[in-house]
């Protein structure tokens, strides 16, 4: 059953644009705190540029991929739900996406930008990151096109570009609505961004075709990007990584964490901006139901991983997975299962998936579980390698934790600014879902 919007066609503009005009009083105070958190993270990055990656505690032969890489996987994963909601659900004509797709797309872009910063730090010399870009250069050096790291660079940059185009295309009609309801400088800025859109038949005609095609292209990316990210791990012969289950397992995990983050943002946002009649409880319920599916796929993947390690009779795989369950990182794996697999099962009970407070709490638990899951995959696997000589214990130091905190602050700050300056709910799409008035009575809905 699709959720019913509780808003009328005529009132949609006012309801949604209200989020732009009237932020609550504490808005700027919270924004300032987040900005300070971001500055703290940037100071940590500056410190690492000055002293090198040794400042982050990386010492050979131990764990050389720390939480910078697990954070990269975490943020890219969260980015996935935006495209999942906006593109895949659009192709399937799932109407509940209408009220949440814009903010999910914005979340996607912010997350990709944040994710992209982690490999840059990890390069050590971040300022020459452009060496990754394949272009004719004086050095006569080209990147290796069969390396998963170059696949990753191409996949992430393509993902960001396509997500941005898709988001902006959807935004153009709404920018015209804001242009028509503002004056002065605001009107000029929104006018430039709206490109002169008037909603003429010709414009809708080409726009709709392109939007459909972009949805199809973005859908392919949802599957491909995290598949490519998983190859960073699956292609080396590292125990704990070298597995064919990684691509589907990563994609399911990505969508799982992304849906949880959508709930984490949506529950407080609909209350703060008083948009409960547009983002209805039924919408939240449907996201929660989707979370059950992704959580079960994830749980199945954990079981298969451990089963295959035992069934393969490979001593290195076997000892690594035993170490995963019982070693000094064992508590993390148990926490992951509890938060990312068991907690979403609560959504089988109707009260948990319809009560915003429970939805928020469980979504936070899933986020915690998914962050630690990436810690297990990246760090725990590296800490017990083939040779005992390489074995080691890793724990992030202040630089890594500071930058991680900074990126969480950046994420929330960027999202708040997006909600303040751009319509976080697609106005023209919600209008259509609200039903257009007819002379004969009733509402006009597209079949």
């Amino acid at each position: 059953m699709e959720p019913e919007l509780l808003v009328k066609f005529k009132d949609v503009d006012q309801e949604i644009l209200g989020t732009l005009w009237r932020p609550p009083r504490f808005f700027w105070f919270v924004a300032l705190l987040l900005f300070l958190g971001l500055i703290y993270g940037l100071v940590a990055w500056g410190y690492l540029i000055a002293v090198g990656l040794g400042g982050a505690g990386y010492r050979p032969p131990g764990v050389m991929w720390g939480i910078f890489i697990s954070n990269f996987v975490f943020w890219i994963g969260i980015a996935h739900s935006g495209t999942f909601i906006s593109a895949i659900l659009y192709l399937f004509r799932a109407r509940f996406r209408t009220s949440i797709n814009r903010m999910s797309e914005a979340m996607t872009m912010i997350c990709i930008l944040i994710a992209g910063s982690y490999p840059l730090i990890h390069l050590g010399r971040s300022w020459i990151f452009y060496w990754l870009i394949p272009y004719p250069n004086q050095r006569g050096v080209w990147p290796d096109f069969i390396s998963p790291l170059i696949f990753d660079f191409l996949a992430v940059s393509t993902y960001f570009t396509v997500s941005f185009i898709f988001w902006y295309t959807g935004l153009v009609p709404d920018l015209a609505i804001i242009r028509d309801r503002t004056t002065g400088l605001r009107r000029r800025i929104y006018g430039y961004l709206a490109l002169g859109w008037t909603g003429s038949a010709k414009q809708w005609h080409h726009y709709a075709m392109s939007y459909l095609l972009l949805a199809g292209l973005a859908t392919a990316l949802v599957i491909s990007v995290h598949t490519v990210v998983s190859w960073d791990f699956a292609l080396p012969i590292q125990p704990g990584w070298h597995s064919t289950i990684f691509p589907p397992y990563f994609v399911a995990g990505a969508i799982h964490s992304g849906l949880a983050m959508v709930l984490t943002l949506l529950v407080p946002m609909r209350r703060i901006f008083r948009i409960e009649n547009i983002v209805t409880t039924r919408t939240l319920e449907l996201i929660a139901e989707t979370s059950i599916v992704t959580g079960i796929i994830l749980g199945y993947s954990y079981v298969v991983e451990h089963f295959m390690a035992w069934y393969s009779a490979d001593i290195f795989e076997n000892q690594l997975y035993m170490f995963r369950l019982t070693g000094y990182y064992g508590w993390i794996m148990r926490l992951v299962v509890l938060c990312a697999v068991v907690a979403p099962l609560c959504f089988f009970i109707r009260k948990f998936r319809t009560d915003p407070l429970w939805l928020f709490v469980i979504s936070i638990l899933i986020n915690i579980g998914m962050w630690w899951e990436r810690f297990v995959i990246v760090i725990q696997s590296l800490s017990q390698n083939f040779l005992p000589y390489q074995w080691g214990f890793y724990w992030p130091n202040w630089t890594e934790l500071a930058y991680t905190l900074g990126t969480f602050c950046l994420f929330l700050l960027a999202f708040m600014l997006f909600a303040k300056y751009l319509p976080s709910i697609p106005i023209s799409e919600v209008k259509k879902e609200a039903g257009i008035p007819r002379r004969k009575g009733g509402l006009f809905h597209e079949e």
Partner: protein
Amino acid sequence: MKSEQAFVAAFSCVDDFLSCLRILKGKGYEIRSVFSPVRLPEIEEILGMGVSKTRLFTLIGGLTGGTALVSLAICAHLSFKLIVYGKPVLAWIPWVVVAFEGTILLASLSSFVSWVFKAGLPRPSTDPGYGPEFSGHKFGIVVAATEERRSEAERIVTEGGAEEIRDVSA
């Protein structure tokens, strides 16, 4: 040559708007523009718009992107001729990923550029006859008619439920 006059009729009800548009089109009036706050496929059907060429540009962009990136990979690897991971210099299989990313990237870019230009955007000002109510909750038809036929066109839209009629310059 008979001088043509244009006017815009604004409607609140979608069924009134669509039926007037159908009648005006059927009677051979020049429909200069139609404004709608939401996309209505019925408008495209009445106006007899074909399939958007955006599809073609997207396809061309995709093919170009995939080919270009694989060509770049071939050039780069031939310039080194290094054996990496024991694979041949021209290792085709991993380039599926490279081709895929190039295809998606350029297809998306060309899709965006083509819809913007085919829609007559970007433009510094809005269409003649456009008003802010058409991005809100009203529908508009800009009709051009000769002096003799204008009264008939006005009668069609007024009887059809138009709430406002105003002249359009140019």
